[in-house]
Structure formats: C-alpha cells, structure tokens
C-alpha cells in the first residue's frame, strides 16, 4: 500500500510540475467552455448594426432612433446596396442589418402592417439570436407606444434571416457533448501519454525491475487522472447548469454514474493505446487523430448521427462517445432514465471490458 501511495504521490508531482500537462488538464476544458460561453453570452450592449432605410419617412426614422438610443445598438454603417451586406458581416463591421421596406409609414398606417427584414450574423448563433430578439422587442414596443390610442394596433412584420448558420444549433446540445470530449481528452490521451513517457525516458525499465506489480503501476498511473477527470466533469456540469442554464432534468445520480462509467472506459482505452506505442509522440497522434477527431466529428457532438452518410453512421457505432453523448442528452435534457439508456450503458460496459481485457493481455512485465 505504501508503495502504491508513493507512486500516486509521484504521479501528482509529475502532473503539477509539468506546465504542458496542466494546460491540457485545466486550460483546454476552460478554453472550450469559454469559447462556447462566448457564443452563449447573454449580454447585448453596443452591438454594431447597419440600417438600410428604403422609405425614409417619419416612422422609419423614429424607429431607427429608438433602436439606436436603446443602448443596445450602435450604428456602424449605412450600406447603399444589398451587395455590401455580406462584406459588412465578413469584416465583422456589423452583427446585424435592419432593412425597412419602401413606404414603411404608409403601409403601417393604411394597411396596419409593414415589414422590416432583420439579417443577423449567425456564425455566433446564440449572440445572433439574442440580438434579433432585442430588435424584435424594441420594434414591437415601438408600435405599442406610437399607436396607443388606436383601436386596432398595427403590427410590424419582422422577417429574420440568419446568415452563415441558417439552421441554428441548440446550444444545450453542447454541454453533454463537451463532457464526452473533455473526458476523452483527459482520461484517454493523458493516460496513454503518461505511460508511454515512462517507456520513453527509460524509467519504465527501473519500474519493471522493481517489486512494483504491473497492476500497481497501471492503477498508479490511472487514479490521478480519474480524480482529475471527475473534477473536470463536475466543473463542466456546474458551469453548464449555473452559467449556461443547461438543465439536468433526469436523475443526477444516474448521470454521475454514467459519467464514471465513461471515465473508466476512456482510461482503459488510454491504457490500451499505451500498450501498443512506445513514445509520447505516437501516443499523442494515436489519441489525437484516432480518438479526438472521431469523438468530435462522428459522435453526434456537432453533426447529428442520423444526418451522416451510411458508412459514417456505421463507423460512428464504434465510437464510445457516440453512445455516451446520447446518454447525456437523454438524461440531462429529456429527463430519461435507465429504461431508455440501458442499451447504451451495456455497450459502454462491453467496450470497457474489452479494452481492459486486451490491455492486460498485452501489458509486458518485461521489456520485450
């Protein structure tokens, strides 16, 4: 037991003394959260917009003034033709363009209905959604105030168009996927790298020549990353819940249990990789390209599995995060229980057992 504790202590020293490991462990999850957090930002202030007024009457001018005096928007450009729109978005000069139709006031008063088009830069989908919502609210408020004495209130017909990302992705879907990717990164990649590092520096030779049992070496390598993975998963869950308001509708205990299972699976995958490769670069490449890319691209994290071509759908079945992300979404967003996710849970269990089995068969108590 003392031996094992000494080994654990050593592993934690390695982790806390290596800036690169620390960056991967804590920097990447935080950076990913911040990236998505920035997209999810709910503060609208001085957003740069462009106004195209094709009627230039008193109502369109007054609505423009109302928009600009709200504090939320700032006039950054007055494009003269439609061909300029895209350039304005691409250069990030504006985030939104408001276009008044010709005869805005006349239509509004005579027909009780007038149109404006709102075009938003949806490359940041959530920010775009917010900006559009604010614009709509101000326009609606405007008609209520202007025509307060009228019997029937005219309405402004707002046509919204999202550029660059026409069908907006649900922001909620990120957190469940992000947990899978972060756990894959930390558990599998870091375990593979830390074991191969001992091989590369030659310290594995001494460890093997010591009375340490292989199981002690592996557990000693795995436990620190298991603890850190759990911490990371909790941080992502908490941030998702409190900052981004991603709900956890289903059972929290079940969710945590599934997360533990997935951590175990990722760790065994890391050990498995380390039994095949002998240096850190290969380990990094293996876990980077063989694990990370499919985890992000083929798991349903970004692209829904059902939209993929059939061959890719088949491949995606082999990717553990695919099953885990489904579990996460079901439990967190739909409130599903074990009744819905038991097949996925079984698949994850089976994969873990397989990885561990091969690793034990392949782990060498000698050098060759």
């Amino acid at each position: 037991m003392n031996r094992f504790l000494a080994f654990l202590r050593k592993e934690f020293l390695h982790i806390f003394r290596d800036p690169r490991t620390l960056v991967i462990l804590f920097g990447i999850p935080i950076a990913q959260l911040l990236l998505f957090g920035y997209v999810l930002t709910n503060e609208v202030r001085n957003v740069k917009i462009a106004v195209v007024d094709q009627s230039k009457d008193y109502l369109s001018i007054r609505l423009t003034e109302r928009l600009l005096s709200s504090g939320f928007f700032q006039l950054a450009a007055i494009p003269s033709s439609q061909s300029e729109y895209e350039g304005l978005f691409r250069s990030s000069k504006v985030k939104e363009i408001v276009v008044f139709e010709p005869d805005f006031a006349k239509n509004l008063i005579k027909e009780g209905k007038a149109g404006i088009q709102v075009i938003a830069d949806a490359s940041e989908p959530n920010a775009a959604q917010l900006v559009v919502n604010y614009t709509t609210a101000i326009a609606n408020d405007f008609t209520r105030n202007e025509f307060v004495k009228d019997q029937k209130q005219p309405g402004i017909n707002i046509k919204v168009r999202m550029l660059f990302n026409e069908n907006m992705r649900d922001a909620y879907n990120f957190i469940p996927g992000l947990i899978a990717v972060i756990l894959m990164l930390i558990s599998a990649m870091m375990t593979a790298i830390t074991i191969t590092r001992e091989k590369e520096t030659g310290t594995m030779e001494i460890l093997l020549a010591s009375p340490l049992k292989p199981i002690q070496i592996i557990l000693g390598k795995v436990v620190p990353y298991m603890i850190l993975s759990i911490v990371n998963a909790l941080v992502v869950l908490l941030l998702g819940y409190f900052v981004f308001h991603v709900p956890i509708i289903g059972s929290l205990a079940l969710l945590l249990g599934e997360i533990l299972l997935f951590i175990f699976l990722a760790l065994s995958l890391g050990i498995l990789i380390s039994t095949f490769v002998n240096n850190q670069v290969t380990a990094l490449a293996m876990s980077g390209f063989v694990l990370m890319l499919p985890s992000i691209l083929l798991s349903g994290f970004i692209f829904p599995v059902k939209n993929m071509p059939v061959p890719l759908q088949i491949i995606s079945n082999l990717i553990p995060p695919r099953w885990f992300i489904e579990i996460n979404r079901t439990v967190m967003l739909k409130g599903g229980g074990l009744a819905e996710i038991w097949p996925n849970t079984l698949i994850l269990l089976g994969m873990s057992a397989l990885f561990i089995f091969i690793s034990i068969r392949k782990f060498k108590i000698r050098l060759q």
Partner: protein
Amino acid sequence: MIEVKDLHKKYGDVIALEKVSLSVQKGELFGLIGPDGAGKTTLMRILMSLLLPDTGSAIMNGLDVVADYKKVRLITGYMPGRFSLYPDLTVEENLKFFATVFGTTIEENYYLIKDIYQQIEPFKTRRAGKLSGGMKQKLALSCALIHKPEILILDEPTTGVDAVSRKEFWEMLKRLKDMGITILVSTPYMDEASLCDRIALIQQGRLMSVATPLKMTNSFPEDLWAVRTRKIYDTSKLLELIPSMLSVNSFGQVLHLVTKKGMHTAKSIIQFLSAQGEVEISVEASTATIEDVFILLMNHHKQNQ
C-alpha cells in the same frame, strides 16, 4: 553469486548473445568490457529479468531469473545505461520514491549510500534533470542502492561522465565491494578494466576471455612494441608492412605494434623503418594493456569466422 550458463539471445536475425557462460563470486567487482553493441546490455537485462533468454539459464544468489524473477528484483540494484530517474522530481523525491517502492526508507539504509549521497545532498531540492552528468550518476547509484541489494548491476555507469567523476565513481564501487556487495559493471572504457577484480571481454555476443586484468595482460601471447614517432600516420602505414606483423594501433602519441612471438627485436624494427627512410623514431618492448588484449582476441575471432 551470479551463475550464467549457455545464454543465447537473438533479436530477429541478429545474435545478441551466443553461448555466454559466466560465474561471479560473492563480493566480487566484475567488469564486462566491450564496445557498443557487444551484448553487455542484453546480458544485464536478462539478469534483471527484464528480458527472457532464448535458451540457457541465469541464477542470481540461488534464484532463477526467469522462475523467481520477483525475488531476484528484490535482491538486486539496477542502474540502466540511460539516466532513468525522474527529471521533474527533486533529488530527495527520487531517492524517497525508490526507497518506498522497495519497501524501505532513506534512514534505514542511509549508512550504505552516505558517502555517495553526501556529495549531492546540498542539492537535494534540485530537480534531477538539472544535475550535472556526474551528479546524476551518483543519484542513480544511490537510488539503486537504497534497498540494500546483495547484487548491483550497473550498465555503463560512467559513459558520458567527466574524468574526475569517473574516478570518484570507481572509488565508490570499491567501497561498496568492501561492504560485501557483488557488483557487475559494464564499460566501453578499457582503462577502467584494470579497476575490476575480474573482467570478461565481450564482442559480438561472445565472451572472448574471462580473467583478472593482470592475468589477462601478463599472458599476452605475442610481442608488443611501443613505437614513438612524429609522423604517426606514415609510420603506422610502414609498420603494417613489417613481416609477421599482427596489428598496429595508435594509443595517443604512441603506436603499439604487435608481432608474432620471437620474430623481432627492437633493433630489427628500427632497421626495417630506417630502410624505409624513417629515422626519428624509438622502439621499445612494452607490456600489453587490456585494449591490446581485446584487439588481439578480436582479430583472432574475426579470422576464425
């Protein structure tokens, strides 16, 4: 203490060890002398139970290195050829780690490493990766010794270490030997061979000779001449033409000429050289060094193939 019998080891088609048999007595400082790739590391790894031999057996203190490998690992201290400590841990943390792994404490066996560890103790909070080459070796030796092993296996401990540290290192080995520890050490430096009790010359996976260094040099079977000249290269080319010449090698500023026993005198060599126009030279009979023995055996070995 160490009994090696008929060890064979192949890596694919490459023969690493061939019919190696060896016996090291308790408390002996035994040297494995040979160039890189001779099979020294393979032999040591088999003894450390890190590699399995193809055939043959090795017994360490009565324990078979294959069957009883766990017990073997407890009674041996091992220092691999490469620096194999944790560069990001401090000197003290490294030592403490290995002490705990072997189920002991620094305090318990401090007397054993005191002489060595005291020299690096002022730097005990320094990371091992930032130590000089000599200090790294001292730390590695301390770590290999901390569990009070009966046998110490050191794979080229002085490679890449400065001359002063090398000398110190061998003095430390002497002291450890005096404490009763059996030491098997390998080195590519022939000059270190004379510091061992007994040595084995190893080349291409075969032991060419096993004896005390003195015996080995005294029983040199041919004549050896030290030739001093200003033009090392030209003279060595000329010497190669002398009848019954066996080898010519340069040792710094001196050429060692080996000729068949009783075929030449210093005078006959000088005559030969002056006939070729070489005048400013001196030739005298000399005793062989380990390196001369090694070269002679190596040439024999090549001719036999």
